[in-house]
């Protein structure tokens, strides 16, 4: 009942609501501006499909945790709010984990502990603290979804760069099949690229082993921040 009343007073997709969704994509991006949620992210960006699954999971958890917290916000005593939030998040993450286990077991095995680590993903917690506890359910939901998408965007950019230059493929391991983009088959990588990338465009390219290492995601995210701050001067760190 309360929800319909809110919708009548405020437009469902007014300017403010749209801003809630698009702000986290650029000027208030959770990863590059708020520095939240890097923890559980960077280890899953070796393959685009893994990053995609992870992003969907985070969008789901973020959105619904915000919605539930916002619905309960007047009932939660402020001393125990951390525990309540953690229980909500942990419950949602358990749902995600069990459904992934049932739907796509190889990916579940691959992501291993990182699905569980969505619980401690600071984006979810941070948005609950900063936004959902003080705002109405619909807007909190949008804010949660927006921040999840902002996180997913960065994750997928990193994963695409790492997979193309590191393995020469795109979407390897997904149920939709993989694309061979660049490079001939590399001896050490041949277990990843079984088709020897025959249809690829730049077959002279040798896969860059650095891109498979975890350190490369740090460089890429550093460069993303550099690019973003070069055109969005407001974000530059003055100190």
């Amino acid at each position, binding site marked *: 009942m309360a929800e319909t009343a809110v919708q009548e007073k405020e437009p469902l997709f007014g300017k403010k609501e749209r801003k809630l969704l698009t702000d986290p994509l650029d000027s208030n991006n959770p990863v590059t501006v708020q520095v939240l949620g890097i923890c559980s*992210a960077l280890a899953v960006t070796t393959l685009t499909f893994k990053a995609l699954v992870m992003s969907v999971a985070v969008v789901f958890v973020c959105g619904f945790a915000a919605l539930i917290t916002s619905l309960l916000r007047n009932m939660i005593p402020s001393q125990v709010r951390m525990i309540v939030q953690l*229980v909500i998040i942990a419950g949602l993450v358990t749902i995600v984990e069990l459904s992934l286990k049932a739907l796509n077991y190889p990916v579940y095995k691959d992501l291993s502990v990182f699905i569980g680590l969505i619980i401690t993903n*600071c984006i979810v917690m941070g948005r609950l603290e900063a936004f959902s506890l003080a705002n109405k359910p619909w807007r909190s939901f949008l804010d949660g979804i927006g921040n999840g998408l902002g996180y997913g965007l960065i994750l997928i950019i990193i994963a695409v760069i790492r997979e193309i230059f590191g393995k020469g493929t795109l979407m390897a391991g997904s149920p939709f099949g993989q694309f061979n983009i660049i490079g001939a088959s590399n001896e050490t990588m041949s277990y990843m690229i079984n088709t020897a990338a025959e249809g690829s465009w730049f077959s002279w390219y040798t896969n860059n082993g650095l891109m498979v*290492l*975890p350190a490369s995601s740090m460089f890429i995210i550093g460069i993303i921040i550099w690019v973003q701050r070069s055109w969005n001067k407001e974000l530059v760190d003055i100190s």
Partner: protein
Amino acid sequence: MEALNLFLKAAFVENMVLAYFLGMCSYLAVSKTIKTAFGLGLAVIFVLGITMPINWLINEYLLSDTGIFGMDLTFLRFILFIAVIASMVQLVEMVIEKFSPSLYNSLGIFLPLITVNCAILGGSLFMVSREYSFGNSVAFGMGSGFGWFLAIIAIAAIREKIRYSNVPPALRGLGMAFIITGLMGMAFMSLMGIDLGV
């Protein structure tokens, strides 16, 4: 001996921050000065070292189907683990507030945020998925805590110095911290293969 080996491996080769990027949020946010980095690092060692054995006991005797309830309760794992961690962090917070109010003030919001430090929960989840024994879980907890401590001290020292360098404005602060972390990760990779040969 096996435990010592695991300690070294957790601290250097499979460093929580530099190999798995766990606990990055507080790692980046608190590493501006060495003093606060030192305090947070100690707190993380303590919390990791304590929660890991407790979570091991919970997993073995409450949640597994050979435990006291005699059924498979592993779906409760996340909630129980995070509850243990949250209460331990509360404990550490009270201790630090009592004995070192200045450190307490300088750590500020980041002390309660250890609860959501991925390194802590990640450690417990790694312990479960790698099926460590009790002794090994203690060693793994202390080792990964120590590795986290080393990493945050190292980057805090570098960031204190780099303030005097001429970094492009758009890269200043956060961007540079990421790139330094990447370089440190590569440096730590050279430690791969450390083994006491047990």
